[in-house]
């Protein structure tokens, strides 16, 4: 579904992404993990088009999108939820979602868009908050909105950037359930996560990054026991 070859991005002298190779298969849930500053968020910004790579290629559904602007990637089916929630604060929850539904695919008729919003708002449990201004939501609601808005663009591949960060364990559990439901509805998921229990519970496959490079990949248990991964995490924990 998504294939990344030799993707590199430098900021000054720092390699935030260094020759990253990555494949995402249709229907899977892929976790990208790694210590702080490993280049995970840069990778997501490169994938969603907010950053342009210095080198490398991104292919999505058989098309090269390396230079495509973010909105074109959205139209092709690449959705993204941000780590730091960024709702449109002066719009209601409903209007926030409507933006995604109206513009996520070109020329969506208003009627269709509204039906999409109805479905998503139900799925994400935001129905009671539909008419609340997004600026007045709690953190949990904000996170849901972030996810819901990305869903409204009707993505084929959803990029999630630490959507569980800051949630209480019970809330995280709910979110895990939600992501599963999203996958079961036919959406492929790539997510960045710090909480290992969440990774373990959700991921079919795990990719580990460090210093802008992929240092390991495979099923959770295999990756967790990889000495390189342990070193990356433990070596800097102190």
């Amino acid at each position: 579904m998504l294939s990344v070859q030799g993707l590199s991005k430098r900021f000054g002298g720092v390699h935030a992404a260094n020759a990253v190779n990555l494949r995402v298969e249709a229907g899977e849930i892929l976790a990208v993990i790694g210590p702080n500053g490993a280049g995970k968020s840069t990778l997501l910004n490169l994938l969603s088009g907010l950053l342009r790579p210095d080198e490398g290629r991104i292919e999505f559904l058989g098309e090269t999108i390396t230079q495509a602007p973010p909105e074109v990637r959205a139209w092709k089916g690449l959705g993204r939820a941000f780590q730091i929630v960024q709702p449109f604060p002066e719009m209601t929850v409903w209007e926030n979602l409507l933006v995604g539904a109206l513009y996520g695919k070109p020329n969506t008729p208003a009627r269709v868009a509204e039906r999409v919003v109805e479905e998503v708002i139900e799925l994400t449990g935001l129905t009671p908050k539909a008419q609340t201004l997004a600026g007045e939501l709690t953190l949990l609601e904000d996170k849901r909105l972030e996810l819901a808005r990305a869903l409204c663009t009707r993505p084929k591949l959803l990029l999630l950037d630490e959507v569980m960060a800051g949630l209480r364990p019970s809330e995280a559990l709910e979110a895990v359930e939600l992501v599963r439901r999203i996958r079961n509805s036919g959406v492929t998921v790539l997510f960045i996560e710090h909480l290992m229990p969440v990774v373990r519970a959700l991921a079919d496959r795990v990719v580990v990054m460090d210093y802008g490079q992929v240092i390991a990949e495979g099923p959770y248990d295999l990756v967790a026991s990889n000495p390189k991964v342990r070193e990356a995490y433990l070596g800097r924990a102190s």
Partner: protein
Amino acid sequence: MILVGLLLLVALVLPGLPLGEWRAFLLDTAQFAFLISALALAWDLLARTGQLSLAHGAFFGLGAYAAALTAPALGTLPALLVGGVVAGASSLFLGLATLRLHGMYFAIATLAFSEVMRTLVLKAPFTGGAIGLPVQPAFGGAFPLGGYYLAVGVLALAAGTSLLVSRSRLHYAMAATRQGEAVARVLGVPVVRVKLLAFMISAFLAGLAGGVYAMKTLFLSPYDAFGLGRAVEALVIPIFGGLYTTTGPLLGGLIIVSLETWLRLRIGEGYLVVYGVILVLTILFLPKGLVSLFRRKGVGHA
């Protein structure tokens, strides 16, 4: 919506009312107020994408000069159209150059653009330079109320566009662009197109208003047509009336221009002080503008 229609209706029948000895003055003031309100509505359309421009004095001035220079050859209505198009075209250039500027950088860049435009008009060989440019009245003076009704027409067009945009999907694209540009793009909003479109519509309307203004004052000078005062009016009125609305700039325009006219009569130069003071007071005490007084919660569109 109802208020907007009512105001336009009053504007239409105003010349027929028994206004007494103040008639000429009142109609003249009203015409000026309509044009400045149209300018404010145009400014607000661009502001909806988060771009607070100080270039609207320049769009107004470009429209005024373009219409004044082409009117003898083309006739009134086509010349006005040329004015709008010239302003719109210049805005496309400005919009492209400033696509990645935000906040104060954008404001300063647009201000710099206006000053460069003013100097160009001042130095160009065909504009009358610093001496100024005499302008023919609308329709060669054949209809005494021609200019007045042109102003009503421009105001109706600006208000209509503003209402239409509020009710279209563009409303969401603009609001999303304003409230979070990067997020908007990731959600599929074609931000570049939205910004440029807003720029062109906005500048076109400002240029139209400028053209009618030229045919009203019958004389243009770069200092008047491109003055910072116009840019200040275009910006203060929507903020005072209520940003991102149609009623706000319309109501604000009528109130402030009336105040301005009264002050002009009393104190002459320095009348712009009202804009400065109103801007400061609005930001401090009524950040959502006049219209927020009439609405229980300031949800952003009307």
